[in-house]
């Protein structure tokens, strides 16, 4: 199967249903269809990390990354979230795009997912974790969990202002990390405490490469 074109992927993800009432404590900012499509397209075309692979999505929210991965040919996508309404939304969106056959969505506490899911069970983890703004350190915990599940690569979005912290964690855990894109997150004022209509946030898309295991050869 030829890889779906970027535009087509973005279009397919465009009208994904998003949260009606985002929860502040979970930092439920929806990944825009444009950003999701760009991340997945790069992961597939440049690094060959999606098609035919087992992919996990931590804090899957609306399911946009899982669904996009399935559309790009991921064989099995598992989306995890602590919020029942997010998981239901993911299922609904996956059904709409006819990819539920390749996906499972699981309710669990992502911050303790290493105690619910077999380690190293996935090739690739893609995620848009909480930035750790509301709950300090949530971003780092998500990243540690992602690295414990993946054998090939982890794609994650982090505030550019936290880059140093993220890079030093990667070093500590002995994985190589590379900023593969610098994005502007145009966060619509999802929450009442946002005064402006939208807030621009500088975000890094980082690819973490796991040390090669025998099973990858």
């Amino acid at each position: 199967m030829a890889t779906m074109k970027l535009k087509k992927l973005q279009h397919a993800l465009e009208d994904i249903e998003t949260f009606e009432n985002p929860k502040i404590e979970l930092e439920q900012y929806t990944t825009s269809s444009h950003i999701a499509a760009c991340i997945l397209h790069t992961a597939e075309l440049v690094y060959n990390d999606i098609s035919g692979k087992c992919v996990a999505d931590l804090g899957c929210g609306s399911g946009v990354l899982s669904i996009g991965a399935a559309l790009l040919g991921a064989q099995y996508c598992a989306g995890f979230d602590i919020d029942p309404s997010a998981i239901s939304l993911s299922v609904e969106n996956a059904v709409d795009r006819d990819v539920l056959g390749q996906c499972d969505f699981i309710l669990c506490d992502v911050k303790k997912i290493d105690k619910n899911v077999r380690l190293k069970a996935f090739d690739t983890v893609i995620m848009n974790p909480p930035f750790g703004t509301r709950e300090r350190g949530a971003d780092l915990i998500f990243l540690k969990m992602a690295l414990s599940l993946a054998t090939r690569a982890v794609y994650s979005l982090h505030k550019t202002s936290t880059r140093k912290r993220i890079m030093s964690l990667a070093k500590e855990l002995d994985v190589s990390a590379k900023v593969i894109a610098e994005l502007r997150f145009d966060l619509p004022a999802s929450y009442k405490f946002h005064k402006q209509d939208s807030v621009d946030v500088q975000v890094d898309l980082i690819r973490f490469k796991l040390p090669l295991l025998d099973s990858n050869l």
Partner: protein
Amino acid sequence: MKLLTHNLLSSKSLKGVKVGYPLRIVAKDVKINESKFNKEFVKKIIPKLDWQVFINAAVQIGHNNDLSDELIDDYENNDEFLKKVHHLLVEIEIINGELICPETDRVFPISDGIPNLLLNVNEVP
């Protein structure tokens, strides 16, 4: 929920649970969802599975085909075998049922295809 997912899940998150694997399955409502057979993928996933847990799970939900407890030799070249594995692993969907912790009998519901592993505050270590 697919049997592939079941193969990965445990209840080690529960207070006092050491292994929490495998979870017992009670399937009340099962659906077959046909999907495209990808030989390379199935070949690649088999060595990653806990094979006995996979076969037991298929038995527990009443879909015990003729696959045996022992993984056969030379499965890589056996298309018929790989197709059966594909069917059991990803085409069977447990829509409603239960996952049960082997150590505490704590029940985790599966509803509308979604396993719920969330814990109450007093169950967390």
